[in-house]
């Protein structure tokens, strides 16, 4: 047998079956353009979001490697950087303006383009119709527009990297006056305009997507799929969409005011400013803090927009691979709901040291620490789901376990930062970087990886290579802790964020060796992500073929579709649902799909 035959199986029936399925589904003619470019099939749009997200994740990660190079080796020069970056790395040394452009773009790209569009965009599109039993989204056309607005946003953001004065460089939060005044920073010239326009396109994309997700989940569930029977992935994606729809418009309003301040002579955010160039600006009476309120009114829900889909997918994958029902389904839904509500009531915990009224601050302390309660419920429920299960460590499962571990580690430090008196010391230090990278960045990435490994067979009808997957998991898991755990100590020492060189500071120069260590690990972890990207694209064409309809023995509806479902998902009738999604290990049976009617002798829970 040839290697190809080993890997794909010599099973003729498989390809015949696949052809058979397609025959049913493809009742309209598809061209390359309608199938791969302006596709209205939710599955193809999901793949478009995913692949665009992967490209952005590569760029965003590469940026972090560049600035880690500066942080790890502040006293060295790297001539090859000048070859690539030109005057941004004069003499092989990353210039301060460019360093700040890198951190700004790294944050913007990863928060919005990768972990919002790449995560929600991919899995909401892919899973909602498949798991609730719908042929497509409520509006496939808006869905297509959602992707193409994201694409437009991507192109504009990318183009800002090539502007002479550089891309936006005031941090991903873009606080004015810094972001409003070209005279205060080079990046605030053309860079911020492009940044705002790109973000506006992004908000449109996210609203079109979000409204679609909500209406699809509410209206298009198949027969028998009541709201209490939908998988937790769908609940999580539902709350995510609600958060996005309610908070992104506020962000947009903040950006529009910023645009007015930049070009129309208004003073929403500007007051009493005398630039170093010797120019006193005419603006008086604005409040720079207003922008922070508008920004964080989205900004905080945004971290849950990033985190909830990961939580939902992890719940689903943990249960499937423990061969045991998710523990406390209703409590899981309730805690998602509680988190979604509280997400709107805690934004000012990012602003404890802005001069905020201390009483107002205390209210936000209370509400912030309240989030720890639903978070604790989720963690303990995940742990109980594992307890007395029969666990298969598929790559998706490993990433899910990794997610829980990271969510615990990063969530607990949130209790430190949410307590305003501690925040006075820890605010804007490396402690914050460690906290949000672990709990929001890496944890959500783990949720995303878990989702990709778990649903890849459904997306492409092939498996990812397992060995590369395990290498990917273990190096990333160990690496993530090695990178971010020691940063807590730098933060406790008060080391501020967004410094490109600490060597001139008596208070912060004790961590030179540690910074170098972190940089080296970061580069190794980045290299391993390239291995994943390679595995991803290679396996689309050459991966081991999926030969059974339900490879994970899962209960949910997507595994009742053909191995490579066409547009419309089910060749015949949409299946009817008779039970919740988590009947694993019930009455001695390994799993009972949602489509199976409840038997007469079945036990109740």
């Amino acid at each position, binding site marked *: 047998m040839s290697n190809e035959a080993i890997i794909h199986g010599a099973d003729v029936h498989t390809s015949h079956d696949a052809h058979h399925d397609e025959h049913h589904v493809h009742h309209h003619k598809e061209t390359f353009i309608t199938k791969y470019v302006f596709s209205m099939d939710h599955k193809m749009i999901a793949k478009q979001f995913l692949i665009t997200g992967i490209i952005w994740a590569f760029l965003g990660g590469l940026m972090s490697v560049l600035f880690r190079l500066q942080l790890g080796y502040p006293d060295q020069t790297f001539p090859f950087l000048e070859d690539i970056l030109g005057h941004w790395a004069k003499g092989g040394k990353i210039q301060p303006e460019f360093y700040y452009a890198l951190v700004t773009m790294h944050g913007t790209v990863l928060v919005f383009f990768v972990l919002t569009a790449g995560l929600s965009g991919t899995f909401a599109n892919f899973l909602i119709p498949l798991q609730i039993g719908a042929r497509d989204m409520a509006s496939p056309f808006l869905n297509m527009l959602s992707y193409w607005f994201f694409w437009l946003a991507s192109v504009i953001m990318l183009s800002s990297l090539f502007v002479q004065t550089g891309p936006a460089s005031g941090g991903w939060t873009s606080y004015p006056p810094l972001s409003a005044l070209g005279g205060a920073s080079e990046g605030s010239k053309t860079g911020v305009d492009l940044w705002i326009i790109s973000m506006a396109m992004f908000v449109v994309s996210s609203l079109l997507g979000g409204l679609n997700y909500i209406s699809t989940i509410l209206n298009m569930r198949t027969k028998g799929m009541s709201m209490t029977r939908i998988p937790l992935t769908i609940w999580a994606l539902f709350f995510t969409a609600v958060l996005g729809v309610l908070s992104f418009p506020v962000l947009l309003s903040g950006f529009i005011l910023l645009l007015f301040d930049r070009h129309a002579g208004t003073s929403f955010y500007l007051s009493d400013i005398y630039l170093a160039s010797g120019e006193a600006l005419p603006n008086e009476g604005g409040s720079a803090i207003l922008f922070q309120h508008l920004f964080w009114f989205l900004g905080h829900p945004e971290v849950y927009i990033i985190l909830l889909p990961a939580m939902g997918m992890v719940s689903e994958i943990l249960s499937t691979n423990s061969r045991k029902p998710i523990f406390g389904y209703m409590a899981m839904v309730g805690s998602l709901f509680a988190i979604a509500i509280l997400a709107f009531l805690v934004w000012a915990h990012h602003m404890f040291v802005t001069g905020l009224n201390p009483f107002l601050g205390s209210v936000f302390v209370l509400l912030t620490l309240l989030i720890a309660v639903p978070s604790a419920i989720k963690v303990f429920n995940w742990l109980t789901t594992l307890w007395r299960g029969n666990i298969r460590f598929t790559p998706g499962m490993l990433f899910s376990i990794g997610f829980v571990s990271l969510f615990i580690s990063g969530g607990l430090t949130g209790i430190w930062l949410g307590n305003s008196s501690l925040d006075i010391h820890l605010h804007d230090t490396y402690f914050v970087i460690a906290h949000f990278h672990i709990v929001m960045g890496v944890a959500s990435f783990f949720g995303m990886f878990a989702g990709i490994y778990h649903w890849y067979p459904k997306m492409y009808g092939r498996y990812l290579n397992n060995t590369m997957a395990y290498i990917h998991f273990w190096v990333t898991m160990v690496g993530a802790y090695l990178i971010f755990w020691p940063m807590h100590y730098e933060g406790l020492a008060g080391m501020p964020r967004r410094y490109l060189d600490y060597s001139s500071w008596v*208070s912060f120069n004790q961590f030179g060796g540690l910074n170098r260590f972190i940089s080296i690990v970061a580069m190794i972890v980045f290299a391993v992500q390239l291995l994943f990207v390679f595995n991803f694209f290679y396996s689309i064409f050459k991966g081991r073929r999926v030969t059974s309809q339900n490879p994970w023995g899962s209960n949910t509806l997507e595994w009742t579709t053909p191995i490579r479902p066409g547009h419309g998902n089910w060749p015949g009738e949409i299946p009817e649902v008779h039970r919740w999604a988590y009947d694993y290990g019930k009455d001695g049976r390994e799993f009972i799909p949602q489509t199976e009617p409840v038997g007469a002798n079945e036990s109740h829970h």
Partner: protein
Amino acid sequence: MSLTTIFILAILLLGFLITFQIAKASEYVGILKGEKKTLEQNNRINAFLLILFLVGGLIGVYACHELFKGKILGEAASDHGQKIDKMLYLTIIITGSVFVLTQVLLFWFAFKYQFSEKRKVYYLPHNNTLELIWTVVPAIFLTVLVGYGLFYWFKITGDPPKDAQVVEITGKQFNWIMRYPGKDGVFGRKYYKNISDAADNSLGLIWEDVPALNLKADKAAQDDIVTDKMVLIENKPVKLIIGSRDVIHDVGLVHFRMKMDAVPGTPTTMWFTPLYTTKKMKEITKNPDFVYEISCDQMCGKGHYSMKGQIEVVTQAEYDIWMISQKAKYQTAVLDKQKTDKPATDSAKTAIVNPVAANAVAVKK
């Protein structure tokens, strides 16, 4: 591109190729061995690695702590700082215990309940008692933390004692300007459009009438002292009035554990009591180079990382001597320069306390 770069890239590429070949080969082997057997084998290896990760991780956490504990907090140099450190220790005890407990459970469960042909899973969809326990217990601990936190928060952000020293600090790209009120104890008025670095008036103090801006001279401004270093008195509460000339900065005082944004157009304040003179801190930290540094903790542009200020904490006697040596900014920036043209008028020393201006810190026109 240099030779080393090409060399590193070649090594990377080779590493990828080898990994890829191994991965491919193991996939063939896996299929030949049978899917079930491969799954069981992978399962055992990964379960073992998970428990190894737990043990290694916990040892790593301990080692990391041993390695860095001497480099972090040091002695808190203010009364507020001591409260914050106390909070920190309480929080680390609670969250640290939860951390160890939950991580151990997570990895131990994963290891213990790894796939086995013989195991029958326990069908447990929910249990109200358990869920109630892990809703209520965290809530109780959080209440304790919130209670302590807010108790200190209100102490720290409350009003400073009446006898507190008052110093103004203003951020600009990329350094700090300090102002003392001078003999009259009153900060004179300033206006940002009156700022002129060329005329050595970096804060826009209204020393003289400025008809163009419709400003009347404020005598209280004439004895104000402007410096680039902050001198504070040991054991005497100090209130900082914080402002910014251009973008948002942040007065970060790591040894005092204090921090407050400097916002253009909106003055902010904070207060604390320095407990040790710089000299004493040199002994406490055993670092002869010790200085109280002011770091900018809010991204403010390309020089953000180098926006450094300095505080020197001294005894009252040393402070008095220092203060006598300081000249009013009006004196050095205007009068001394006029002296070269004509004899000086001694107006700087005749500043009158103006009760209206006494409360006006950053009054606009």
